[in-house]
């Protein structure tokens, strides 16, 4: 394995691991908070039909207005989890473009990124 591909391995590995740990930690923290305050795990407010961007804006909006609570932590965890693969594709595109100058794979990962953005933001 070349030094370059090893670097990309490290970037991908770091993003996946950090994303997973942060998301699971947020969900567990929210559940413990819910159990301590409400005495039960249920019910969490429903997520109405929204795209992922609206979901993140909703979570961030709650944080901005100080309306945080167990559900906020749990939803933040879900948002972080869903954005982890997206962040991996974004980082890969940047890596191929800026570090490797590999335009074939910049286009390939760029295509995946574009499809994801369309679905995540517009569907």
């Amino acid at each position: 394995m070349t030094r370059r591909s090893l670097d990309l391995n490290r970037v991908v590995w770091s993003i996946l691991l950090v994303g997973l740990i942060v998301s699971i930690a947020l969900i567990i923290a929210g559940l413990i908070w819910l159990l301590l305050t409400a005495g039960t795990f249920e019910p969490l407010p429903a997520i109405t039909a929204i795209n992922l961007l609206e979901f993140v804006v909703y979570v961030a909006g709650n944080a901005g207005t100080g309306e945080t609570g167990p559900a906020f932590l749990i939803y933040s965890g879900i948002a972080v989890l869903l954005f982890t693969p997206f962040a991996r594709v974004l980082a890969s595109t940047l890596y191929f473009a800026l570090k490797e100058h590999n335009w074939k794979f910049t286009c390939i990962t760029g295509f995946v990124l574009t499809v994801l953005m369309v679905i995540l933001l517009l569907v």
Partner: protein
Amino acid sequence: MVSFEIVFLVAIVAGFFGAMTGLGGGTVIVPVLTLLGVDIKMAIAASMVSVVATSCSAAAMYVRQGLVNLKVGMYLEMFTVVGAVIGASITLASGRQFLFVAFGAVLIAAGISLLIKQRLSLESPARDQQDRFSRWLGLAGSYDDRAEGRRIIYYPTRAGLGGALMLIAGMIAGLLGIGAGAFKVMVQDLAMGLPTKVSTSTSNMIIGVTALAGTSVYLSAGLVEPNLAVPVILGVVVGAFIGTLLLVRILNETIRSYFVVVVILIGVVMIVQGFP
């Protein structure tokens, strides 16, 4: 609605079975949730979110070990993300009976293909057998094989065929809320000639992005129910972790085959549920 605790426990068992068989937690959690009375579309949506989590966990481990061929994975993702969106859209438009039958048929096919694959011994193509397109993409790779104590260099071929087949694998994943890892591994093994260790680990990386595409369709349709999705995410991750630990320590291929047979039987139950 089934209680949080029950869904969590069921998800642990599903994650465990998924790791044992190599089929992923979604193949078990969806059928079991439907048996508990959960709507199949909500079960599929919850499973799809959990697939993102298990993929991140497994892919991180394999990437660190240097087993993932990132270029092959990123090339094939072009096809699986499109397939996942098509598959998830079909689910939204489909009747529930169709989903039960489709899920059952896919489980049986995946289980049988795993049993057959265990008996196959595949040779990776040599450098001069690589087709021009795969060479142009620069898909060749290498990894350290600890069992053989040497570095294995391999040359994937038929990238065009692999991409087309991955579109179908992505559709199955999006349609049924599963990783469809068995199909993705088979495409890379049989069509593209990747070593099984590389195809298994690369498949795990592809699954995460594919599942994200499917999840976003279900999220926008309002099918992601947090009271279901949260215990499923946590349970499947815990179960998969336990399953992976046991898999590498105590189990052999024969015992693994028994788990696959159970999955095939679950497939039969799903088909029966589809014909009330």
